């Protein structure tokens, strides 16, 4: 053991542990592992599978939007068989199926794909490495949180196959629709959605506790707060968002569960009348209460979707411009302000539920305030490009194109944030365009960049650059062709969540309907360009070009100071940090950069 008198010396002995001499079995190694890297990979593979599944759901919906009433090719017959004729009669997507797929697309993309990929996978794999820790602070809790996530996913998927089908009230699950949507079955899709959400929320809470404790307690010696890579800061703020924003939705979920199965009326007001007559509940509840509790989570949640991606992008930009991030400190403070403010802007999703001037003014003021730190982070990244020596490898291509894509998404958030313009744009395709620009070419690009970037650390091999570039250019084109036309549809007043693509409101030759078709075609194009990625991902694990060293990108942060792939316990000797995170091209540096753990 190299280090002597250190207070954590015992932690880093890889040979000193007598209990671990025997090779762990398959289950111990891959299913019940407590190693943060294995858990990270578990999260990664499951969430990529969910991402793909969420995309497939959307492809079926896009078919229906472009060709309403026409049978879905290939899958139509399958849907009819598996999900029942009332869902897909003759292979045609019925309104209920559309709503159900829509709700599940949103839920799966947000809670089962992007958050687990950004926070669960990258967070787990990279954070302990970057702060120089041997593992997470509570390894068994970490495992439990993955298992809860997985269980939640199984419950969500299972809900497709129960009578009545999966939840069909949007990912927002507004009451009273969520409660009244299926009057026949008591255990309906919504019930399983709620059970699944409670599991997922609990998983995220445990994850958040673990991350924050790890970052506070397990930083290596010398790793002061302002020497943390920006990625770690992003994860830190994200974890706080999850920790404090999720519980109110858990409470709301329990209450809606009671409304669904126990006949309470937390969210059901007095005087509900349906075609079956007066709804037999006591009434007295408040539908808006659900919305408040939901958005209290869901607005911070959108920053959960974006902050880790910003973290990844920052690492890659610093690395490939070969210079320090410009304004690192202001980025850190901006991330913290985003985190703080994101708790008090939620009602900008509720302007049109009936809001007086005072409250509306409060919420739009905070909304405008929160756009400033985003501008600060983006600006800092832009300025970081200036004076660099930019290498355009695949991770960098994805990372730099994150910037304008997030820019478009963020800028289109402004007219939604002003309540006066939201009057017209609310719940139109403009909103769909806005947030997909942030989450799809935004976050997904950031995460793709991360996959290409850390792949050599995880496997010791590069992914193919050629296939990577095909994937990049195809995705960039596809994403823009899919989402730009949505702004025009929104401007035309096309509402979201329309199972016929707006055919009830627009004449057959209206441009809004023409665009529906072109968007769908672009989505097919987008899908085709994912194939090289999927092939590249799996093929490169065994056949990719070997990485030259443990630090093939010439990076400064501690994650590259480990053997490849990092062993259990990560570091061979206790890492000690002497420098800030991005000492690229520092004057006098020998290899053009100064690693964080290099003495002097």
């Amino acid at each position, binding site marked *: 053991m190299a280090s002597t008198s250190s207070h954590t010396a015992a932690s880093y002995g890889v040979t000193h542990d007598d209990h671990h001499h025997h090779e762990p079995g398959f289950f111990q190694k891959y299913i019940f592992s407590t190693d943060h890297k294995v858990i990270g990979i578990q999260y990664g593979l499951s969430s990529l599978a969910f991402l793909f599944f969420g995309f497939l759901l959307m492809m079926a919906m896009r078919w229906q939007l472009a060709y309403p009433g026409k049978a879905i090719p290939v899958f139509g017959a399958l849907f009819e068989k598996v999900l029942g004729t009332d869902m897909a009669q003759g292979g045609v997507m019925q309104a209920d199926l559309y709503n159900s797929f829509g709700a599940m697309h949103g839920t799966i993309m947000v809670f089962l794909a992007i958050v687990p990929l950004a926070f669960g996978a990258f967070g787990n794999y990279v954070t302990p490495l970057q702060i120089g820790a041997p593992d997470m602070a509570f390894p068994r809790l970490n495992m439990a949180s993955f298992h809860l996530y997985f269980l939640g996913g199984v419950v969500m998927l299972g809900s497709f196959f129960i009578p009545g089908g999966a939840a069909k009230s949007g990912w927002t699950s507004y009451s009273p629709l969520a409660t009244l949507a299926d009057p026949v079955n008591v255990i309906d899709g919504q019930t399983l959605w709620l059970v699944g959400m409670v599991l997922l929320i609990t998983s995220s809470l445990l994850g958040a506790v673990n991350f924050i404790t790890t970052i506070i307690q397990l930083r290596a010696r010398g790793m002061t707060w302002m020497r943390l890579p920006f990625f770690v800061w992003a994860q830190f703020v994200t974890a706080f968002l999850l920790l404090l924003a999720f519980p*109110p939705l858990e409470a709301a979920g329990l209450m809606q569960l009671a409304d669904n199965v126990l006949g309470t009326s937390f969210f059901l007001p007095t*005087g509900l009348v349906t075609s079956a007559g007066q709804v037999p509940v006591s009434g007295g509840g*408040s539908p808006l209460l659900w919305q*408040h509790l939901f958005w209290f989570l869901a607005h911070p949640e959108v920053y959960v979707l974006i902050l880790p991606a910003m973290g990844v992008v920052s690492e890659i930009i610093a690395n490939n411009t070969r210079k320090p991030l410009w304004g690192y400190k202001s980025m850190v403070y901006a991330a913290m302000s985003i985190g703080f403010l994101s708790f008090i802007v939620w*009602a900008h999703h*509720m302007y049109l539920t*009936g*809001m007086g001037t*005072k*409250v509306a003014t409060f919420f739009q003021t905070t909304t405008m305030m929160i756009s400033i730190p985003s501008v600060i982070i983006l600006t800092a990244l832009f300025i970081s490009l200036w004076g660099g020596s930019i290498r355009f490898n695949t991770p960098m291509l994805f990372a730099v194109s994150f910037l304008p894509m997030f820019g478009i998404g963020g800028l289109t958030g402004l007219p939604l944030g002003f309540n006066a313009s939201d009057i017209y744009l609310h719940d139109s395709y403009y909103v769909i365009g806005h947030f997909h620009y942030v989450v799809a070419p935004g976050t997904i690009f950031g995460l793709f960049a991360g996959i290409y970037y850390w792949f050599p650390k995880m496997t010791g091999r590069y992914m193919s650059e050629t296939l990577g570039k095909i994937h990049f250019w195809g995705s960039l084109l596809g994403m823009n062709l899919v989402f730009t036309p949505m702004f025009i549809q929104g401007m035309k007043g096309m509402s979201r969540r329309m199972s016929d693509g707006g055919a009830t409101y627009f004449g057959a030759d209206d441009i809004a309907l023409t665009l529906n078709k072109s968007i769908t075609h672009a989505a097919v194009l987008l899908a085709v360009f994912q194939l090289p990625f999927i092939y590249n991902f799996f093929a490169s694990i065994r056949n990719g070009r070997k990485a030259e060293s443990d630090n093939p990108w010439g990076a400064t942060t501690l994650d590259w100071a480990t053997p490849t792939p990092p062993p259990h316990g990560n570091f061979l000797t206790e890492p000690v940090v002497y420098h800030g995170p991005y000492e690229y091209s520092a004057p006098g540096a020998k290899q053009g950069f100064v690693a964080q753990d290099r003495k002097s």
Partner: protein
Amino acid sequence: MSDHSSHAPAHSGDHDHHDIAAHVRTYMVVFGALLVGTVITVGMYYVHFESMAVTIAIALFIASIKAFLVAGYFMHLLSEKKVIYSMLAVTVVFFFALGALTLWSSNDMPRNTETKALYVP
């Protein structure tokens, strides 16, 4: 019972036996105060004030004092570390933000909004 004397006493540095004994006395005092607080709160219910607002204010005031005692002494929050204070500070801010803003929103609606369905008398 004292067969554990072979173990090193569990120190964490800033406590020793005397300290702890003093703490124990504090705990008993706090315990008494909590019981008294409970009795006062319940007694107030039977006294019955005219104004509901006063009743709520007093009840919540006593509850807050009790909470302060439990958190401050039993949970040692009065001598806790800075990290924990800052964590709890943001939590408390968001706790009140959630309650206050939700309540405010339900009060400030467009003029002439009625909080009932059209056909509910």
